[in-house]
C-alpha cells in the first residue's frame, strides 16, 4: 500500500510535467492542425537555457525559490522567442500548402534542433545544478513527499490555471478560440490571425520550457536528445486526452505519468518507453478522438 502511494505521488509529479508539454501540442494542433514535432526539442532548449541561467546567477550556491523563479522565467522567455522564430520562418510560409509539407517541415525543425544542440552543447549529458533545497515536506512510513515534487506539482498547477484563465477569460483567449474554430471567419471579424497564432506558439513554447526546468529538477541531467522521448510521451498524453482539448491534455498528462510510474514500479523499467506507444496504438484503434475530443468526420 505504501509502495502504491509512493508510486502514485511520483506519477502525479511526472504527469504534471507531461501535462504541461501536452498543452503545447494540443494548443498548436487546435489552432493549426499541426503536430508540432519540434515541441519536445523546445523542452530541451528550455532546459539548456535554464542550465546556463542557473550557472550565470550562481544558483547552486543559493538554492531558494527566488533563484528558481529567475531560472524558470529565463528559460520560458528563451523558448517563447524560439517558438516565435520557428513559427515565423518555418511554419508560416507553408500555411497554405498541403498539411503533409507542414508535417515534414516540423520533422525537419525537430532534427535541426537536436543536431544543432549536439554541435553547440556537445553530445555528452550535463548535470543540472540543484537550484532547490532538498528536503521532505511530509514523511509517513515509507511514503515521502519531497520538495522537488511539491515544486513540480505547484508550478505546473499554477501555470495550468494561468493558461485556463487566459484562454477562457481574456480577450486574447477568445481570439485564440475563434482562430482555432476557423481562420477565415476569425480574420473576417477583425482578429489578427497571424498574431494570435504566434502568441499561441509563444505560450506553448514557454510552457514547454517550464516543463524542461521541472524535468531537470526531478532528474538532474540535460542532453540534446532529452526532448525526444519526453515529447513523444507528452504527445501521447495529448492524444489520450483528445488532441485539441485543453482539459483533455491535462487529464491525459496525469494518466500518462501515473501509468508510467506504475509500470516502472510493478513491471519492468525496460517497458517504460514501450508503454507510451502501446497506449497510443490502443487509443487510436478504439477511441481515435481521445477521452475528451470530438470526432469530426472529414468532408470533401
Amino acid at each position: 500500500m505504501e509502495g502504491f502511494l509512493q508510486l502514485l505521488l511520483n506519477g502525479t509529479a511526472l504527469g504534471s510535467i507531461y501535462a504541461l508539454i501536452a498543452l503545447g501540442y494540443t494548443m498548436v494542433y487546435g489552432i493549426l492542425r499541426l503536430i508540432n514535432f519540434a515541441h519536445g526539442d523546445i523542452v530541451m532548449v528550455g532546459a539548456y537555457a535554464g542550465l546556463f541561467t542557473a550557472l550565470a546567477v550562481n544558483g547552486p550556491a543559493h538554492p531558494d525559490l527566488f533563484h528558481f523563479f529567475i531560472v524558470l522565467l529565463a528559460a520560458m522567455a528563451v523558448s517563447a522567442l524560439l517558438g516565435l522564430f520557428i513559427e515565423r520562418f518555418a511554419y508560416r510560409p507553408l500555411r497554405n500548402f498541403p498539411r503533409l509539407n507542414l508535417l515534414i517541415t516540423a520533422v525537419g525543425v525537430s532534427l535541426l534542433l537536436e543536431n544543432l544542440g549536439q554541435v553547440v552543447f556537445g553530445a555528452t549529458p550535463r548535470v543540472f545544478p540543484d537550484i532547490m533545497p532538498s528536503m521532505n515536506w511530509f514523511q509517513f512510513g515509507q511514503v515521502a513527499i519531497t520538495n522537488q515534487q511539491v515544486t513540480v506539482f505547484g508550478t505546473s498547477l499554477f501555470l495550468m490555471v494561468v493558461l485556463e484563465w487566459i484562454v477562457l477569460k481574456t480577450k486574447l483567449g477568445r481570439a485564440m478560440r475563434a482562430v482555432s474554430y476557423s481562420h477565415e471567419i476569425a480574420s473576417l471579424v477583425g482578429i489578427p490571425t497571424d498574431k494570435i497564432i504566434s502568441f499561441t506558439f509563444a505560450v506553448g513554447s514557454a510552457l514547454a520550457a517550464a516543463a524542461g526546468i521541472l524535468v531537470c529538477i526531478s532528474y538532474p541531467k540535460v542532453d540534446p536528445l532529452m526532448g525526444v522521448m519526453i515529447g513523444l510521451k507528452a504527445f501521447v498524453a495529448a492524444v489520450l486526452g483528445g488532441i485539441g482539448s485543453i482539459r483533455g491534455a491535462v487529464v491525459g498528462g496525469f494518466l500518462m505519468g501515473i501509468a508510467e510510474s506504475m509500470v516502472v514500479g510493478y513491471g519492468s523499467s525496460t517497458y517504460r518507453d514501450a508503454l507510451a506507444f502501446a497506449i497510443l496504438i490502443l487509443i487510436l484503434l478504439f477511441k481515435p478522438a481521445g477521452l475528451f475530443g470530438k470526432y469530426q468526420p472529414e468532408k470533401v
Partner: protein
Amino acid sequence: MRANLQWLVILTVIALAAQGLTQVLPPYFGQLLILACINAILAVSLNLVNGLSGQFSLGQAGFMAVGAYTAASLNVFGLGFLHGTPLGDQAALLLSLLAAAIASGFVGYLVGLPTLRLRGDYLAIVTLGFGEIIRVIILNIQAVGGARGFISIPNSTSAFLVVFLLSAFVLLTHRFVMASQGRALLAIRENEIAAEAMGVDTTTYKVGAFVVSSAVAGVAGGLFAHYLSYINPSSFDFMKSVEIVIMVVLGGMGSVSGAILAAFILTFLPEALRPLQDWTHVDLRMVIYSFLLIVMMLVRPQGMLGRREIWELFKPRSPQ
C-alpha cells in the same frame, strides 16, 4: 512474354555493367556505390507509400530491420549446409532474401491493417512507434545478439544482385503506376474521399501498398546485412527512417527516379563533406540534412523532380 524477356536482358546487362564498374573502381567507391543502391531500394520502397499513395510512414527502418534479421538468421542458422560453393552461397542468399520479403511483408500487414485507417499525421506517429517497438524487441532477442549485434553473416551480396534488384523494383513500380491498381493509388493520394466515392477500396489499396513497400524494404535490409556481414539494432533506429523519408522528399514525392537520385546524393554527400568534418571536428552531417529538408520544403516543396521522372524532363509538358 517477349517484352518481358527483353526487359530481363536489359536488367541483366545493367547489373553486369554495375558489377564491372565495381571491379574497375577503387574499392572505396565500389562500396559506396553498393550502399547507395541499397539506400535507393529503400527509397523506392518508401516512395510507394509516401509518394504514390500519399500516406506518411516514418517507420521504414523497422521493416528493414525485420528483413535484415530474418535473412541473417535464416542464412546463418538454417542454410549453413548450402555454404561453401559460390552457387550455394548465392542460393542461400536468395532464399534468405525471399524469407526477408515474406517476413517484412507480414509485419507490414500486421502494422498496416489497423493503422492505415488513421489520417496522415497520426499515421506518421504510429508508424514511428511501431518502428521503435520492432527495434526494442530485436534489442531484447539474445539469440540474434541483442544490443551486441549479429556477427559473422555470410558476405555474399554482390553489386550484380543489388543493381539487378534495384532496376527490377524500379521497372515494376513504373509498370504498376501505369496499371489500373497504380492509378487507384494515385487517386487515393489526390483525394481519398473522392477516390472512395469512385469505388476505389481505399483500405485494401493502402494496406496493399504498405505490405509491398515493407517487403521491398525487407529485401533491402537482407542485402544490407549480407553486405556488411554485421548488423546492430541501432543501425535501424528512427534516424534511418528519417533518412529514407528525406530521400523520398528530396527527390520529389512520387518520382521513382527522383528518389534514386536523392539516395545517391545523400549517400555520397556525407563522404564529400568529410573534409569539412575534419576541419570543424564536429559531425555536421545531420545538421545539414535537416536544414536541407526545411529549406527544400520552403523553397521547392515538390522536391527536385516533383512528380515527374528523369526521362520525362526533356519531353514537352503535357497541357494541363
